[in-house]
C-alpha cells in the first residue's frame, strides 16, 4: 500500500473545489483515460488577472485527486503571474510529500495549470513540442529534459516517477537514458 501522508488521505476523502465552475473563463485539461489519470482545471480570473475561484474534475488515484485539490487551494487568490511560478514540488510539499512513484500526479497539476493560464491569455501552447520519446504516455524529449533539469533526475526510474515516460511497454527506456545523459553532459 502506498505510504500516503495524512494530508493526501484527507484531501482525497474530502477534496476541495470539486466540480465544474459555471462561470470559468480559463480551462486547462491534461491526461486521458488511457493514461490512467486526467485532470480538468477550471479558473475564474478577474480583470486584474487574479484567480478568484478555481475548481477541478479528476479521474485518477488518491494522490491525483489530492494533488488536484491542493492545486486549487494553492492558486486561489494568486495572480496569473504568481500562479505561473507554482511548481509541481509546491503541490507535493503542500500535501506533506508524495510517494516518489506518484510525483507525476503533481506534475499533472502543474501541466493543467500551465494550459489554463495559456487558455486565459489566448496563447497557443504548441501541443507537445519536441520529439516523441514515450509513445505509451506521449512524453517528448523536451519534457524529459525539463524534468531532469528542474528536479535533478538521475535515472530512467526517476523520469518514470515524474513523467510516467518509460513506465508502459518500456521500449523507450534506452532513449530516455540517452536524453538524461545528454542533459548531464551539458552540465
Amino acid at each position, binding site marked *: 500500500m502506498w505510504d500516503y501522508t495524512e494530508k493526501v488521505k484527507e484531501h482525497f476523502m474530502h477534496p476541495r473545489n470539486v466540480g465544474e465552475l459555471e462561470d470559468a473563463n480559463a480551462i486547462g485539461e491534461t491526461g486521458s483515460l*488511457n493514461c490512467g489519470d*486526467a485532470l480538468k482545471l477550471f479558473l475564474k480570473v478577474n480583470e486584474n488577472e487574479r484567480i478568484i475561484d478555481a475548481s477541478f*474534475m479528476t479521474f485518477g488515484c488518491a494522490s491525483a485527486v489530492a494533488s488536484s485539490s491542493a492545486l486549487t487551494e494553492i492558486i486561489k487568490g494568486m495572480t496569473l503571474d504568481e500562479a505561473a511560478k507554482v511548481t509541481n514540488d509546491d503541490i507535493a510539499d503542500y500535501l506533506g510529500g508524495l510517494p516518489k512513484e506518484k510525483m507525476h500526479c503533481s506534475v499533472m497539476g502543474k501541466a493543467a495549470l500551465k494550459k489554463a493560464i495559456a487558455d486565459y491569455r489566448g496563447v497557443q501552447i504548441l501541443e507537445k513540442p519536441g520529439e516523441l520519446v514515450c509513445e505509451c504516455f506521449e512524453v517528448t524529449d523536451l519534457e524529459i529534459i525539463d524534468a531532469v533539469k528542474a528536479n535533478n533526475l538521475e535515472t530512467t526510474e526517476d523520469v518514470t516517477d515524474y513523467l510516467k515516460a518509460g513506465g508502459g*511497454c518500456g521500449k523507450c527506456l534506452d532513449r530516455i537514458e540517452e536524453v538524461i545523459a545528454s542533459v548531464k553532459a551539458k552540465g
Partner: protein
Amino acid sequence: MKVIYTDNNATTKVADEVIEEMVPYFGQFYGNPSSMHTFGDQVGKKLKQARQRVADLINADPDEIVFTSCGTESDNSAIFSALNANPDKKQIITSTVEHPAILNLFKFLRDKKGYDAVFVPVDKKGHLDTDMLYDSLSDNTAVVSLMWANNETGVIFPIPEIAKKVTEKGILFHTDAVQAAGKVPIDVKAANMDMLALSGHKIHAPKGIGVLYVKKGLKFHPYLIGGHQEKGRRGGTENTVSIIGLGRACELAAAHLPVMDKEVRQLRDYLQEQLLEKIPSVSVNGDLENRLPNTLSIGFDAVEGESILMLLDKESICASSGSACTSGSLDPSHVLLAMEVPFKSANGTIRFSLSHYNTKEEMDHIVATMVPAIEKLRAMSPFWKDGKMV
C-alpha cells in the same frame, strides 16, 4: 471495525484447524524428519501423512509430491527441469495472461537465454486460442506451461483437454494450478499432466510453502541442488511446520469443494448481480461460465481502481484492482489488456475474490459501500456527466 476479506486470490486466512495442527511442531516437535532417531522420525511420520493429504487433493501418489517454498519456486523448478531434460529443444510455449512466475520467467528465457518463447493470446472472454497453441507445437517444443485458472478474472482454461493433446505429442506439459486448487476439482491422473504447481497460502495454509507435482517416471532435474530431501528433487531441510499445515489445509480444501461450488458461487453471483443492478456502466470481465466460483472481476467506467480501493479500505473491505496505480506499474493489468478490456473500464476494475468464510451480510455491506463510492468518484471524474460516460 471488522475486516471484510474479499481478496482471497491474493492470499487467504490461515484456517484455525491448520494452525492447531501446526502449533506442536513449532516448539515441541522440532526434530529433523531425516534423523535416525525416534524424536526426529515422529516429525517424519507426520510429514508422510501431510504428503498423503496433499496427494489426495489432486489424485496423485505421495511420491509424486515435491514440497517447495512457494508457487513461484514450483513454476520455476518445473520449467528449468523441462529445459534441462530437453537441452536441444529451443521453443517454449505459454499464454499472455500467466502469473509473473511464468510470464517473467519466459521473458527472461527469451531475452537472456535465446529461447523462442511463444505467448498464445486469449480472446475478449479470456479464452485461450487453442488452435494457435496446437499449431505452434513442434519437435522443437521443450515445454508447454499454462495456468489452470486466471488469478485476476478467474477464467478457467480447459487444462485436462490441453494436457492430453500436448503430452500425446511427447511434449512436456506443466500447469500453474495455484488459483485452481481448492476451488475446482483437480485430477492429475485423468488429465495426464507432467507437472503441476500449487501454493499453500491460497488455500488457507501459511505463506512460504508450495508444491510441485512431478509425474511418476518423469526425469526430473532439481532446481535447488543439495541434500537427499524430497527424494533428491529439492534440497534443503523440509519446512516441516508449514508442510504439516498444508496437509491439513488440503484435507479441508477437498472437503470444502462442494461449498465452493455452491455457497461461495452463490455469494459471488449475488455480489455480481447487486453491483450490476445498482451501479450503471459496469461490466464483468471474462467468461461468466468458465470461471472460478469465488472470483469477480468487475470494471466501473470512468473511475480509477486505486481510488475505489481507498474508499473500500475506509470500511475495512479488502479487495484488489487491475488498475495501473495500485501495482506501481503504469499500465493496467496485462491480463485485462490481453483481453482487450477497454481502458475506460480496465483502469476501474476491482477484483473481489471470496472464500467460504464470507457471508451474505458482508456482500450487502460491500454493495452499500460501493454504490456511494462510485457515485462520489464519478461526480469528480471529467469523463462522467449526467449519468454516463463522456
